[in-house]
C-alpha cells in the first residue's frame, strides 16, 4: 500500500472563508448534466457533493409498461456511448430464462461488436480525459478513429450510436460481405493511433504531472464502494467478468486483464485508471482478431428470434463487463410479455459514488481530472 499524498487540509491556521461552487449542470467538464456542489478553500477542495437526477427518465419504471423486445432500444439510452455492451446482459438474461442456446456465429458476432464498442468507449474516455487536462488534439485523433468503428456498427445495425442490434436468440441483421476485412483494418488503425497517443498524451510530462498521484483510490476503498471496470482495475484489482465469469465464448480467447501497475505515479491514481483503458483497447483488439479468425462463416444470425416472448415466471440476474464496469440486469417475470420489475445496476452510478471520497484535499483542477478518470456517462448514472 503506497502512501497517499494530499494537501494538508489543516495547512493554515488562518480561518479563511470557504467558497461553495456549483460545478454543473451546465459546465464543460462534467461530461453531461452532473452537478457537483464543491466547497473550496482557495484552490483546495474540501467537500464534494454530487447531485444527480438531471437526466432521470424513469427507465426502470418505464420498462414495466413495455414488452421485452421494446426494452432493447431503451437500454441503448442508458450508457449511450457503449450501447452494444448494454444490450448484451439484458439479452443474455432473457435467453437464460427462456433457456435458448444462441448459435456460435451469433456469439462471435456479439463479441466482435461489443469489443468494437468497448474500443470506441475507451477512445472517448481517454480523449475526454485528455481534454480535461487541456490537450485538445488527442481528442480529435481519437474521434477520427472512432468514426471508422461507428461506420462498421452502422453498416451492421443501421444506427451510429444507439444500435438496437441485439435480439433475444440472435441479432437483428447478418454481417455484410466485407465485414471481417473492415474490422481488421479498424483494429490496425486503433493500434496505430494508440501508439501515437502514447507519445502525444500518455507519457507527456505535463500530463503525467497533472494526473499521477491525483485521486488515489485504494483497492480497499474501491471494493467497499463497489467500483468495477477500469476504475477498480486501475487500483490493481484484477476483476473482469469476461475472464472471471466467462460468459458467451470469452473462455476461448487469449487475453489479459490489464490492471494499474503504478509505472508512473502510484496504483489507483488517475493516470493508472486511464492507462488501464488504453491497455484494454489493445486487449480488445486481440479478442477481435481471434474472434474474426474463429467466427464460423455459415449460419443465419436471425433464425432463432422469437416473434413474441413470454418469459416464464421467475427472476434472473445477469451481468456482463461493460466498458465502464459491471452492468447487471435483475428481471422479475410474472409470466407475461412484460417484466414485473426490472432493475439495472449501472457501473457509472456506483463508480461516481467514490468521487467525494477520493477528491477531498486535491486542487480544484484535479477534481475535474478525477471525475474524468472515473469515466461516467450521465445516461447510466440517472437512468
Amino acid at each position: 500500500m503506497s502512501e497517499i499524498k494530499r494537501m494538508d487540509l489543516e495547512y493554515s491556521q488562518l480561518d479563511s472563508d470557504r467558497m461553495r461552487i456549483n460545478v454543473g449542470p451546465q459546465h464543460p467538464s462534467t461530461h453531461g448534466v452532473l452537478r457537483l456542489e464543491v466547497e473550496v478553500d482557495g484552490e483546495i477542495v474540501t467537500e464534494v457533493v454530487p447531485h444527480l437526477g438531471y437526466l432521470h427518465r424513469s427507465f426502470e419504471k418505464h420498462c414495466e409498461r413495455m414488452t421485452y423486445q421494446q426494452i432493447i432500444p431503451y437500454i441503448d439510452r442508458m450508457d449511450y456511448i457503449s450501447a452494444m455492451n448494454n444490450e448484451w446482459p439484458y439479452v443474455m438474461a432473457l435467453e437464460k430464462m427462456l433457456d435458448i442456446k444462441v448459435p456460435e456465429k451469433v456469439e462471435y458476432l456479439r463479441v466482435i461488436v461489443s469489443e468494437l464498442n468497448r474500443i470506441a468507449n475507451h477512445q472517448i474516455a481517454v480523449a475526454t480525459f485528455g481534454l480535461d487536462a487541456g490537450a485538445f488534439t488527442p481528442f480529435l485523433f481519437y474521434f477520427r478513429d472512432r468514426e471508422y468503428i461507428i461506420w462498421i456498427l452502422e453498416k451492421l445495425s443501421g444506427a451510429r450510436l444507439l444500435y438496437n442490434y441485439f435480439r433475444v436468440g440472435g441479432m437483428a441483421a447478418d454481417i455484410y460481405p466485407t465485414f471481417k476485412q473492415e474490422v481488421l483494418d479498424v483494429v490496425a488503425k486503433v493500434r496505430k493511433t494508440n501508439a501515437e497517443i502514447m507519445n502525444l498524451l500518455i507519457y507527456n510530462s505535463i500530463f503525467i504531472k497533472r494526473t499521477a498521484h491525483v485521486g488515489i483510490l485504494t483497492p480497499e476503498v474501491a471494493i467497499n464502494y463497489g467500483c468495477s471496470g477500469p476504475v477498480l482495475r486501475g487500483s490493481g484489482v484484477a476483476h473482469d467478468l469476461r475472464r472471471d465469469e466467462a460468459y458467451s465464448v470469452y473462455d476461448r480467447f487469449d487475453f489479459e486483464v490489464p490492471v494499474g501497475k503504478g509505472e508512473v505515479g502510484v496504483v489507483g491514481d488517475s493516470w493508472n485508471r486511464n492507462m488501464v483503458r488504453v491497455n484494454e483497447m489493445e486487449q480488445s483488439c486481440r479478442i477481435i482478431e481471434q474472434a474474426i479468425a474463429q467466427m464460423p462463416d455459415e449460419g443465419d444470425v436471425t433464425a432463432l428470434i422469437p416473434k413474441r416472448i413470454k418469459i416464464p415466471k421467475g427472476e434472473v440476474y445477469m451481468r456482463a463487463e461493460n466498458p465502464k464496469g459491471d452492468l447487471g440486469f435483475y428481471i422479475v417475470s410474472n409470466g407475461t410479455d412484460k417484466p414485473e420489475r426490472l432493475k439495472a445496476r449501472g457501473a457509472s452510478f456506483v463508480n461516481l459514488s467514490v468521487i467525494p471520497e477520493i477528491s477531498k484535499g486535491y486542487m480544484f483542477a484535479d477534481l475535474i481530472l478525477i471525475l474524468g478518470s472515473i469515466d461516467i456517462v450521465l445516461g447510466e448514472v440517472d437512468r
Partner: protein
Amino acid sequence: MEKTNFIWDMFGTNIWTVLAVISLPLLFVLVYALIAILAELKVSAWIQERVGPMRTGPYGILQPIAEVVKLIQKEDITPDLSSKLLYNLAPFIIFTGAYAAFAVIPFSEAFVPAGIDVGLFYVFAIGSISAMGIVMGGWASNNKYSLMGAMRSVSQLISYEIPAALAVLSIVVLASSMNMQEISRAQTGWFWNWFIFGGPGDWTKVWVVPFTLALAITYFIASLAETNRVPFDIPEGESELVAGFHTEYSGMKFAMFFFAEYANMFVVAAILTTIFLGGWNSPFGDFMQGPWWGAMWFISKSFFIVLIQIWIRWTLPRYRVDQLMYLGWKVLLPVALVCFLAISLFVMIK
C-alpha cells in the same frame, strides 16, 4: 534626436502625423489579429488532421471576419449583480495595456512609434496593466469562476514577470541599452550577431552563447505564461473554470479580451524578436537589408514566434496552478538568475 520615424521625417511633427503614428500600429493589430485568428483555426486544423473552415471565402480565409461580425451582433450582457463600471471598463483596460506596448516596438529601422530610451522597461511596466484589467473584469463579474480565474492570473503574472524581466535584463547588460531600436541596431549583420547567439563580438562570445540560448527559451516560456496561452492558460482553464475571468463577457467586450490576447501574443513575440532574433535585421548580412525589408523581416520573425505559440497550444496539456508556480519560481527564475550573473560577469571581464 535620431531618425526613428519615417512619418515624422517626411511630414514633420503635427497633430495629423502624431495621429497617423498612433493609429498605424492599431491598423496593424487589427489586421494581424484577423490573420492570427485564421492561423489559429487553420494550424489547429492541420495539426488535428482536419481542413478547418472552408466555406467563408476561398479556403475559409474570411472566417475571422465572419467571427468578428458574429461577435458584434451578439447581445451585450451585463450581469445584474456585477459592479457595472468596473465590469464595463475592464476589457478596454486590458486592450489598452496590450496596445500601449506597441508604442516602443521597432517595426523597422525607420519606424518605431516612440523611440524612448527605456523601451524595454516601458514594455514591462505597461504589460502589468493587463493584469489589473483581468482582476477588474474577474472580480466585477460577481462570478466565482471569474474570481478564481482573476486571482490565478495575477499570481501567474507576478511569477512570470520576474524570469522574463531577468532574461531581458541580461540582454540589456549585453547590449548596454534599453532602447529597443539600439538593441536591434547592435545585431546588424549576419544571424550570428543576434543576441540568441551571443550578440556581436569576437570569438570570446562563445562563452555566453549557452546562456543566451537558455535565456531565449526562458523568456519564451515565461511569455507563454504572460499571455495565458497553453500550457499556462490556467486563468481561463476551460476544463475547470469554464472560461476563467471572462466567463460573463459576451459580444464585443469578449472580442476585446480576444483581441488583447492576440495583441499580447504579438507583443511578447516582438520583444523576443527584438532582443534575441535580431529585430528588423536580415539574417544574411546586407541581403534584403533596409527599412522596408526590415519591416518584412520583423513581422515575419514575430509571426513565426506566434505560430510556435499556436503550435504549442494545440499540442500540450495544461499545467496546474501550483505546478505553474513551481516552474516559475524554482526552475525559470534560478536559470534566468544564473544566466544573468554569467553574462554580467562576461561583460565585466571584457
